[in-house]
């Protein structure tokens, strides 16, 4: 990726960093962290993550996601700035900073000569778990990620998706408080994705924190509570998903699904006229399943639209923001221009 200073200027002019957590509450914090690779520089990166968040870490390939994660894990040394994990320096106080942290790397390359059971035992020993704790946790984790029947297979014989599941299992070993997941859903089948979502939500419900990098934006939208967006080594946005969409999109889209839509919500129908007159609505377009309502980014007329549909006698099947909004906002952010 080229390191275009003009692009940087444009991007940083729209920078929004929402410090959601104070430094004392933050389990993860970056303060002007820079990694200089010579021809390419990542940073300065400044953001923090508070306890109990599921943060989606977004950015195009080569934007600096992995570098940022690796600085956080103490695997690489920042050229300048500070990085804190569990309020400790992960490079110089590595053992204590990582005591309660699980990490699943992008494209996990696990030891092919081991079995899943042996890998988790190795992880347990690295974590200093006792025999009993290991014996208690190991089968539960393998069961959770759907690998219990493959416990004694060599990892070399597992499929890519199974290795990914195992990578998440080793990250969960030792009941960590923070999970750092680099593309955890890659290669996972739909049933596995559902299983993982449930595992991650349970993890956060129990007081955990997750930072998850992903290119699957629908996954980020359905799972994460907030976002960090990075591009060309700079943080473009830090905050809630809805705030990101509002900031990046000139308008938002609400999909109104109506039974027998062509008859009740066709062009020029009374319902279309009524919805068009709602405050904040810019345009109403008939769609095969109902209506597509474009609204101003700072308004949320969903309740009003819902009332009008019901009053019109139409059967409301569904109503919500378009699923592609995050995609559009993300593309807008990395291009450095707001979408109209």
């Amino acid at each position: 990726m080229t390191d275009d200073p003009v692009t940087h200027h444009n991007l940083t002019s729209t920078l929004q960093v929402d410090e959601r957590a104070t430094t004392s509450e933050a389990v993860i914090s970056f303060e002007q962290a820079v990694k200089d690779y010579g021809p390419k520089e990542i940073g300065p990166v400044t953001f923090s993550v508070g306890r109990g968040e599921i943060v989606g870490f977004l950015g195009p390939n080569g934007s600096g996601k992995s570098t940022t994660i690796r600085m956080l894990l103490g695997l690489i040394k920042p050229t300048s700035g500070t990085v804190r994990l569990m309020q400790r320096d992960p490079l110089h106080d590595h053992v204590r900073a990582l005591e309660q942290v699980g990490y699943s790397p992008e494209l996990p390359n696990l030891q092919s000569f081991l079995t899943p059971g042996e890998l988790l035992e190795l992880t347990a020993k690295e974590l200093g778990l006792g025999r009993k704790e290991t014996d208690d946790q190991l089968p539960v984790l393998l069961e959770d990620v759907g690998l219990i029947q493959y416990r004694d297979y060599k990892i070399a014989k597992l499929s890519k998706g199974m290795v990914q599941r195992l990578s998440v299992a080793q990250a969960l070993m030792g009941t960590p408080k923070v999970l750092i997941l680099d593309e955890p859903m890659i290669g996972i089948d739909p049933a596995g994705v559902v299983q993982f979502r449930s595992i991650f939500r349970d993890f956060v419900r129990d007081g955990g924190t997750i930072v998850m990098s992903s290119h699957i934006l629908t996954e980020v939208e359905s799972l994460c509570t907030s976002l960090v967006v990075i591009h060309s080594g700079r943080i473009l946005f830090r905050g809630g998903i809805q705030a990101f969409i509002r900031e990046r999109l000139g308008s938002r889209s609400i999909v109104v699904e109506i039974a027998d839509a062509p008859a009740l919500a066709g062009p020029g129908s009374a319902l279309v006229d009524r919805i068009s007159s709602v405050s904040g609505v810019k345009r109403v377009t008939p769609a095969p399943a109902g209506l597509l309502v474009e609204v101003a980014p700072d308004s949320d007329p969903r309740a009003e639209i819902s009332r009008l549909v019901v009053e019109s006698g139409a059967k409301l099947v569904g109503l919500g923001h378009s699923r592609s909004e995050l995609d559009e906002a993300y593309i807008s952010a990395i291009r450095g221009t707001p979408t109209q």
Partner: protein
Amino acid sequence: MRASRVLTFARYEIRRAVARKKVLSLVALTVLISIAPYYALYATHTSLVTPPLRPYLWILGVFLPQAFFLQFTALLIAAGSMSEEYEQGTAEVLLSKPVSRQEYFFGKYLGGYALVVGIVILDVVLSITSATFVFGPQLELGIEPMILLAQVFAALVFYSFAFMVGELMRRSSLSYILSASVFFTSEVVGVFLNILYSLTGTDIYKVANYYLPTSSVDSLPLLLAEPNFPSSVQLVFRFAATPVEPSIGVSALLIAVYFLSAVLIALAYFSRMDVAKRVT
């Protein structure tokens, strides 16, 4: 640094090394080298094996692999120890846990070295067993533990050097090539210097030969063993090598300097450098 974590990585390293076919091949070769010479000598009915020599033939199997095979084994085990973890991307996963780099480093170092020691012990046991089985009861076996210690101590030189190169290069093929090149160059230069000294009698060649890593590695076990055997047995020792170093002390000191330098350089580099992502 916690001993339990060092032990965890040491066991892991043994497991990892054994899973590699080249290490298994080395073990198979050890068995062959330890056993084959005795049966070959027996089968050929050679006049070289006189009755007074027979009770000392165990030293043949113990010393025959010293100059080349044991050093090359140590080198092969160590060269991939660090570098293959980078190549396979497994270093990143192992070091993202609450373990210190020193625990990882020394665990892997000691694990690989334990394997080298195991191969040396296997060679000794098979040599003594084969010699006894083929040529009858063997004598002066009491000296063997000291020889064994000298051999495993001497093996530290090329083991540590290859380990260091593996960490510095972070590419296993480069590490193997570079470590093996230094080893063979040292052997060849040693022979060359020896010839020059024999021809010219100039001390500089002899002194230069002292400082070659292979000289001290080859010399130490021989210097320790030779005084304990009758002069009639010296012929058997000549199969292994001729000691170059002037004394046990010099030899041991040079070995210590070489291996400690390599370990310290590797440790300093590993402690300061980033843990590389998977490289191919």
